[in-house]
């Protein structure tokens, strides 16, 4: 069972279009991370958001952390075929001695030329 719910599960768009992926949870996290995973590879960290309401931009990617630190969104402007991949959000829960990442099921994004 995934603690974080991502939507949509699958997204197919044309090059140049915009897209938004959502990540929602009923839990509060210390931080939330977004990863992109290619087939047969491990996830690669794109960004970490920590503060409620935080917005981070990474070239054409914009990440937002909800005010209550329970949800997040990823917006891609003018998508390119190289943006194709599985986008995963992960919430970090910290204790005194360790930290655990809990992942959503992912959103498969396909950008066609």
């Amino acid at each position: 069972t995934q603690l974080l719910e991502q939507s949509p599960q699958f997204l197919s768009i044309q090059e140049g279009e915009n897209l938004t992926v959502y990540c929602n949870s009923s839990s509060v996290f210390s931080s939330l991370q977004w990863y992109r995973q290619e087939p047969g590879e491990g996830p690669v960290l794109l960004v970490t958001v920590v503060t409620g309401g935080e917005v981070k931009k990474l070239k054409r990617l914009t990440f937002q952390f909800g005010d209550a630190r329970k949800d997040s969104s990823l917006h891609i402007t003018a998508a390119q075929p190289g943006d194709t991949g599985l986008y995963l959000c992960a919430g970090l829960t910290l204790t005194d001695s360790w930290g655990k990442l809990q992942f959503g099921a992912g959103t498969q994004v396909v950008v066609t030329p």
Partner: protein
Amino acid sequence: DAGVTQSPTHLIKTRGQQVTLRCSPISGHKSVSWYQQVLGQGPQFIFQYYEKEERGRGNFPDRFSARQFPNYSSELNVNALLLGDSALYLCASSEGPRAMSTEAFFGQGTRLTVV
């Protein structure tokens, strides 16, 4: 610098067998975490080790065990394999057990197929 390395990359086992997967963290990283990613799902946390001690465990049966060596490399063992254990097993490396927020780096994974 080498990233997180996992071996083997692919493995086929028969039900009931045992398997050992290996992970070498990034140089200087002392914490290793293991994740299981079943097809169509996100990674699920299995274990975290730091300085050879288990710091955290996910909701997995006792058939799953792990250890960390003095050089910080780690092994994940799964006994009495079931078909449902077929998955991509990922290892993540970080400097410390609470440093996952900015310093978690994943290996390419080991694809385990149980037949």
